[in-house]
């Protein structure tokens, strides 16, 4: 931990490398970190309406899809954070954990930028409906930290796994799209509740254990005046276990890093 504080300039440099390199050469630059989720939200809103036949709540989809983008970016960048930096890992000695930390932070900064846009867009949509944000917004920083903490755990776990088993990246490609549909990103929790409730009550409990279920629902609760956060212990448990998970992932990463240079 102390070494991390000592190397904060390195974290800063790697985060800025990540950000600069991503948008270098594109004329819209960092605007893409907002445009991508905005387009996604537009597409999902359109097709959701088309398929389900009922009016989708655009604000709700924007909140969900923007938050999903943070996790998806962290997973995708985190996956290669060690294995794509072979040269660095083999030739330069520095605390390896800086790699997943910096990709998660870069994804987090992107998300913070898009959150700013989200506030504007959702604000306008609410205002047109004669509504406004509630005080729940103050929970946002804490929520963001929990979300980032979970993403960091995923980046550390997948990043170290991918060094040893390159199959990870293919598996994750599939798992990522499964996770998208298993998380309330383009629909909200009430949609699953009605679906799952008809089948098996345990299905809903299992679903709630997905940390993203609780986190996305909490984001909606913070942003949208009408949204509820159900008093469901399973949902809360889903949001609590990432606290331990990331510590565990950190432990795995620490053990795995001994042989990083040999396997890359």
């Amino acid at each position, binding site marked *: 931990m102390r070494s991390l504080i000592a*190397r904060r300039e390195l974290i800063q440099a790697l985060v800025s490398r990540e950000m600069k390199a991503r948008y270098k050469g594109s004329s819209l630059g960092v605007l893409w970190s907002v445009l991508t989720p905005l387009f996604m939200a537009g597409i999902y809103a359109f097709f959701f309406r088309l398929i389900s036949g009922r009016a989708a709540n655009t604000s709700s989809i924007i909140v969900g899809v923007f938050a999903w983008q943070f996790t998806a970016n962290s997973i995708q960048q985190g996956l290669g954070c060690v294995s794509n930096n072979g040269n660095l890992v083999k030739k330069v*000695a520095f605390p390896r954990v800086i790699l997943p930390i910096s990709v998660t932070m870069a994804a987090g900064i992107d998300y913070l930028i898009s959150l700013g846009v989200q506030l504007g867009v959702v604000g306008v949509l609410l205002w047109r409906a004669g509504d406004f944000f509630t005080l729940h917004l103050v929970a946002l920083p804490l929520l963001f930290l929990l979300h980032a903490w979970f993403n960091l755990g995923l980046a550390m776990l997948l990043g170290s796994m991918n060094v040893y088993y390159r*199959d990870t990246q293919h598996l994750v490609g599939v798992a990522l799209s499964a996770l998208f549909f298993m998380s309330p990103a383009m629909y909200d929790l009430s949609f699953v509740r009605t679906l799952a409730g008809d089948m098996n009550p345990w299905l809903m409990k299992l679903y709630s254990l997905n940390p993203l279920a609780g986190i996305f629902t909490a984001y909606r609760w913070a942003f949208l005046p009408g949204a509820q956060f159900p008093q469901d212990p399973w949902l809360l448990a889903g949001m609590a276990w990432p606290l331990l998970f990331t510590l565990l992932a950190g432990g795995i990463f620490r053990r795995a890093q001994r042989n990083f240079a040999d396997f890359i």
Partner: protein
Amino acid sequence: MKYAIEAENLGKCYTLRGLGPQTLFGSIRRAVTRQTPQLFWAIRNADFKIPKGSTIGVVGPNGAGKSSTLGLAAGTITPTEGCIRAEGRISSLLELGAGFHPDLTGRENVYLNAALLGIPREDIRKRFDAILDFSGLHEFIDQPVKNYSSGMYVRLGFAVATEVDPDILLVDEVLAVGDISFQLKCLDRIRQFQKKGKTLMFVSHALQTVEEFCDEAFLIYKGDLVKKGPPPDVILEMIRNYSGEGGTIYAQEFGTREVEITDVKFINPRGEEAIRFDSGSSLTIQIDYEAHQEIEQPVFGYSLKTANGMYLYGTNTQIENAAERTLPKGPGQQKIRLDPLLLREGNYFLSLSIHSWDHVTQFHRREDWYPFAVRNTNDAPGMVTLPTIFEG
């Protein structure tokens, strides 16, 4: 503690698992079949202590384990057994420009690289002009480094890396980059480090550089630290026993062996065995051979190449009209004297050959088998000395 780096029973083992990265399927299969993996010790049972302020050169043929040893000292790889301790701040130049991002500009990469090496941003900001001067990349510093030539790339890398003020500097074969003037600048930097009392450990194939700069040399061969000691002794050992036998890349040996070269010595004008010779003095190559049968009219020949393979000169007893003779069965000696030695500073390879008068039978030929070095005694540049007289 007066040692900068201490290694005890240091070992690094790699598992050979065929080509490519490990796959999930592969490791499951190995777990089920209990196949024992093939092991490869890059370095083993190495014990050494490097006193503070000294300069150590690590030599050995390709694949001997030199870079692994340096990697262990730098902490980029973890030892399999034993341990290695370093006292003080380490900076490693295992590769120049490692961590440069192709899409970022030279300037951005300087800051990134500095952060990787642990140099505070503020220091670099202050020293930026010095780095720029050292690298000589003024016009290009705001271009993405993907457009750089490989020489520009390493120059920038070296310029940043030597701005660090480490206690220990580890250098892996990076001194031989860039053109002559940049190499001289690099060597000058190294001398400054030495003057400041820093500890240096470097891997090099440039034996001259090792002899010139180091207080002590380590010879590593096939994962063993076979010799430690004064650089000239270690280098002689390396050249005599480890460089020849397939160690150097091009070295090869063939022939029918009716006459066999048994021993070759390089003798300096004082009659001592040596591997470095002063340009302008004499070099005697003393060849001991063993004829397994009587040989009529054999031809003894030699040729010289520079370290980068350029053919310089070659001749033999036939061309030189040396007295024809018949070798009796048994041992004998042939001397070749180059006097004066007209080669100038550099590393050279000697090839030797004994063949039949009609060139049909090659009895024994050793191609690029014997390396040696030449040192200048005056300031004239170039590859060979041309006897020159100025008049007027």
